[in-house]
């Protein structure tokens, strides 16, 4: 019970410490926050549902372009624009989920891959709408609540992005312990058993995709708002692949892994790239291999001395009754 209040306070303390301690690194932290939100969206399907996805950039890109196109039309109010990005992401997630929910394993993976490539190609073919490789630039974002303008130092963007991530993280935490989240987890662990219990899978997976799509859309929208730019690169395959790598690095199946992975990946990349602009990739590759070899469950999968065994993991008691 105490943990419930202590944890948000601790995080808020960290946020303030970063804000005062690293005022010239806020752009990096904001960027990592966006990636963490994206990783969190992937966590909902991969971590909870156990459904791999290689096309998550599709939802991210749709969100990014929703904000971009709205800004071009003069709709620059950030909160409603971001909400629109989330809604578009959710709708796309539900639509994709209607197909993906009927598939498992490799076929599902192939469909997500195809979806990502399809949207990337479509965006390239519609330069009038998307701006093609050149993208849409000069996108205005109005001050938040009419008073906090986005500044070059990224102070507003920092608090804004962190708030969105915090809200999303809280929602995912609640989701994990809700019957819906628990049943998703059960689907991951033993779909046959779930089926035998008479719990439908299709609607659950579809809803998971809807939630995941909404979060990815929010992340995309955040990226557009904090960089004032969007191009078809948001749909690219490497974005889908990178986010999966980040999630694996942090630890699949753990929502804190979705935070740790992007932060670690991003900070490592930045430090190594500052060390050497050409050979940082080698350092990053070695670090990733080391993590996968030494901690196959991701960094949070390690048995840290100060951690209880799998503290975030909700184990299903054998007697849990699942309600449809």
């Amino acid at each position, binding site marked *: 019970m105490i943990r419930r209040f202590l944890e948000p306070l601790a995080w808020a303390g960290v946020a303030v410490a970063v804000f005062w301690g690293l005022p010239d690194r806020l752009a990096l932290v904001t960027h990592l926050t966006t990636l963490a939100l994206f990783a969190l969206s992937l966590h909902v399907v991969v971590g909870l549902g156990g459904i791999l996805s290689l096309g998550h950039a599709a939802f991210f890109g749709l969100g990014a372009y929703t904000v971009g196109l709205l800004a071009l039309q003069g709709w620059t109010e950030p909160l409603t624009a971001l909400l629109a990005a989330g809604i578009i992401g959710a709708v796309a997630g539900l639509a994709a989920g209607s197909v993906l929910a009927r598939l498992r394993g490799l076929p599902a993976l192939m469909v997500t891959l195809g979806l990502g490539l399809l949207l990337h190609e479509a965006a390239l073919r519609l330069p009038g709408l998307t701006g093609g490789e050149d993208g849409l630039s*000069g996108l205005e974002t109005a001050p938040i609540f009419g008073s906090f303008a986005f500044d070059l130092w990224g102070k507003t963007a920092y608090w804004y992005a962190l708030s969105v991530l915090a809200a999303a993280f809280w929602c995912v935490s609640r989701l994990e312990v809700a019957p819906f989240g628990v049943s998703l987890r059960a689907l991951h662990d033993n779909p046959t058993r779930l089926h035998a219990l008479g719990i439908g899978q299709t609607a659950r997976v579809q809803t998971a995709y809807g939630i995941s799509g909404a979060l990815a859309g929010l992340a995309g929208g955040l990226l557009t708002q904090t960089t004032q730019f969007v191009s078809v690169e948001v749909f690219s395959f490497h974005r889908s692949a990178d986010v999966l790598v980040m999630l694996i690095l942090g630890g699949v199946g753990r929502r804190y892994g979705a935070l740790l992975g992007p932060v670690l990946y991003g900070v490592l990349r930045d430090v190594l790239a500052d060390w050497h*602009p050409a050979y940082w990739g080698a350092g990053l590759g070695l670090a990733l291999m080391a993590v996968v070899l030494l901690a196959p469950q991701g960094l949070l999968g390690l048995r840290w001395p100060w951690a209880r065994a799998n503290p975030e993991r909700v184990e299903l008691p054998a007697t849990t009754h699942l309600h449809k």
Partner: protein
Amino acid sequence: MPILLSRRALVITSALVGFSATVGAADPLKIGVIASYSGAYADYGKQMDGGMAVYLAETGGTLAGRPVTFIRKDTAGPAPDLANRFAKELIIRDKVDLIVGLDFSPNAIAIAPVLTEAKVVAVVMNAASAVIPSRSPYIVRTSFSVSQVSAPMAQWALTQGIKQVSTIVSDYGPGQDAEKAFHAAFKAGGGTITNAMRVPLSNPDFSAYVQRLKDEKPDAAFIFFPSGDQPTAFMRNFRERGLEATGVKLLATGEATDDAFLANQGEDPAGLITSHHYSFAHPSPRNVAYTAAFRKIVGEMRPSYMSVAAYDGLALIDAALKKTGGKTDAPTLIEAMKGQTLDSPRGPITIDSVTRDIVQTVYIRKAQRVNGQMVNVEFDAIQAVQSPGVTP
């Protein structure tokens, strides 16, 4: 969890400390370089660094009397969100005086709002999309635009009695720019476009397109593909289907015979007529000295148009700083850059005082072997070509 977090803070802090250690010496000019140093496009960064190194070797390592510190940021190809963040960090954290490099158009466009807000000048050393300089009042370009080198090819074709042309371009920004500029110039001179074909950017199979050319038999075909394997693949297909014998001439922009790849393309490019602003074999004492210096500093690699744009970028900064008396604030510096004329290894270049884009000679060249090396031999030139880009 807080323990992990403080570790993260530690990592960031140590990076910060490591960075501030690079600052030193008496008031050096700080230049941020945003380019590709790793991955498939690592040569781009190498070419730019080489060109800049040659210029600094000439001036004894200074620009307008000030020593220069470079802070390099790697985007590893087109990565607009990274470029945007790098620009912010270079300005806020590293407090650079200028930003240079910018090999990919999306990267250059993505940093434009940052430049405008922070009032920092950027010198674009490659990105070739027409619109770039119009996106911020503090962007200046020393490279070229695809439109700028495509239109002269149309004008030259008209002087050769070519009346009908089919165009085949890669379906992406620069390809569309090339198509648009060629069509406009060719139609304005009374020519007819028989067919405008666009091929996918990745893994295209050219046989169907070449077959259509064979059926239509235009006077010539104009192609634009990104430099690398694709132009060679097209030319091989063009030969194999015997289109040369039917009298269809093949025209292209310099991307098809990029000096960086030409040495490894075998006999396929032989005879190809291209339009571009720089050839490694440009016959001037200035260029001979440049290529010799480049090879002495960088190695056996051929200096490409990218290296020359980087060389000229530093020359432009040098000249502008001398004019402003060392002032680097963006409005003053950009004003001093406007209208500058420089003696580049490629010939005379001028920065247009309205568009801040480059005005230069575009050469018509033919790929052939000279002393056993495949090079682009310039045989005709169109002087003072404007970039038909967007006026701000």
